[in-house]
């Protein structure tokens, strides 16, 4: 019986950012406050 050659296509790996990166972004968003005074935008990051 003839050999059956086929290229197995691997399912594409879903790559994701690190959990620490996501965690940082969510904390950053919670800590960031912005205020607009006239044309000036002030960003405050609370510790």
């Amino acid at each position, binding site marked *: 019986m003839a050999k059956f050659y086929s290229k197995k296509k691997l399912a594409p790996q879903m*790559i994701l950012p690190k959990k620490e990166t996501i965690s940082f*972004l*969510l904390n950053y*968003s919670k800590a*960031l406050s912005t205020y607009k005074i006239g044309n000036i*935008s002030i960003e405050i990051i609370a510790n």
Partner: protein
Amino acid sequence: MANLVLSDAVLVKNYISRDDESALASLIERHQSKIYGFIYSKVNDRNLSDDIFQDTFMKVIKTLKTKSYNEEGKFLPWVIRIAHNLVVDHFRKSKKMPFQRETEEYSIFNYMADNSQTIECQIIKNQVEIDLARLLDELPDDQKEVLIMRMYQDLSFKEIAETTGVSINTALGRMRYALLNLRKVIEKNQIILTN
């Protein structure tokens, strides 16, 4: 019970108007794979992709919080555009200061060799020059004079002939005998003058 899937537009609106942090978390979770995958496809480095992903969303968060974002139902394309611009910025910066990783096949030192002599070679060279100067002293004055003018002062035979008041053929002859006598002295004393 049907799960309510909120659209990007609603999530963005909730985030901006109500400071709903869970809306941001949903947006990130929904699109992280596409955005991160896009970045990684360009830079091919996980750590760098994380950095650019982080910078991308920091810009997104700032823009949303300062209410500078116009909702037109194109949240994902907008974020991808930010990521794309940051990738371009990265390549522009790295072009100015290219980072070369040394691998087995490629070493920067194959192309940027230090051509200066080692200390050992320098010492040997100095010793050879000292020995050669001693050997020159063994030669007759007229031969020594021609040899020094030719090898150390880089004069042409015409200039040597004019300076010493002899014909060019005489200058050439003195040079020939100087070299022959030098070789004899070197062989006789078994001196090694190679570096």
